[in-house]
């Protein structure tokens, strides 16, 4: 089956986020009352797996091996749904 999994990669707490700081400043310049912004990335992945837990495990492994760098990133994985048989 093809599962849709969302992996969210974000900076570890306490890590400096220049991109977030720039976004915060730009938002403040536009008149918003913003205290801070942290930027992260999401990967919405269609992955082949036997069941949801296998899909989740695979996505975690993808985060470990490619999508995140443990020095700076945390990641979180969530199975969103599935699509039935794959060819």
């Amino acid at each position, binding site marked *: 089956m093809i599962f849709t999994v969302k992996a969210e990669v974000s900076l570890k707490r306490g*890590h*400096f986020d220049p*991109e977030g*700081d*720039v976004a915060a400043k730009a938002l403040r310049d536009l008149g918003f009352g913003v205290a801070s912004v942290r930027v992260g990335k999401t990967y919405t992945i269609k992955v082949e797996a036997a069941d949801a837990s296998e899909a989740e495990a695979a996505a975690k492994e993808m985060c470990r091996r*490619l*999508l995140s*760098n443990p020095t700076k990133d945390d990641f979180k994985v969530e199975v969103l749904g599935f699509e039935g048989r794959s060819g």
Partner: protein
Amino acid sequence: MKRARACVLRVGGTNCDEEIKVALEELGLRTDVVHMDWLEKGDVHKYQLLVFPGGFSYGDYVRAGAVWGKRVVSKIRRDLERFIESGRLVMGICNGFQVLVESGALPGGDGAFSETPKAVLANNSSARYECRWTYLRCENGSTPFTSKIPVGEVLKIPVGHGEGRFIVESEELLRELIKENRVTFRYALPSGKAAEGAYPFNPNGSEYDIAAICNKEGNVMGMMPHPERAFFGWQAVGYGGPEGAGDGRRIFESIIEHIEGL
């Protein structure tokens, strides 16, 4: 010298291969620019020097250098381990440095590679791409990459990157790098004092002003600045004279002297 040969690797998105080839050839070294696909099928061991050049490998998507770095691990790790263990030289410049870090070759582990990366080149603290000249203080003049540069000497070499803020996994590892003399260049003030994070002398906010590091054995080095863009004097108008040499040339001269002796 007759036998020595360098390989400048490339993948889609690499774009600084030509100027590195020019620099090496200028010093008489036979240099091939080789696509990763060919190297995976071919033989890396006929080379004494392997260079991972700058550019935007795979568009720098996901994370700068990550996709290429993981491909190195999955496709040519064993070959590269042997290459490194035999004392030959591997150099990563800019995107190439990012690749070496993402693959685990730098700072390195117990073997040639650590299982997971122990460092990262994160977004510049300015949150922007920075193309500018920097002052680099040589911290270790006895690696194969720096033997012609005395410790304390300041080189003028430009950077051009958006992700060059070097951070390591832990305080401990940083101390270890410093203690083992593996920080080869630091961003500095014109006087030669460390920049201590002061922008724009430290252009990206790197910890300890780190611009370049090497592995334990000293035969793998990664650096964010581009020595090939400061090879000729005319590349450095306003920083040196149009005649003669640029400061980056001395890094290449060190390399060549070393591999001639291999």
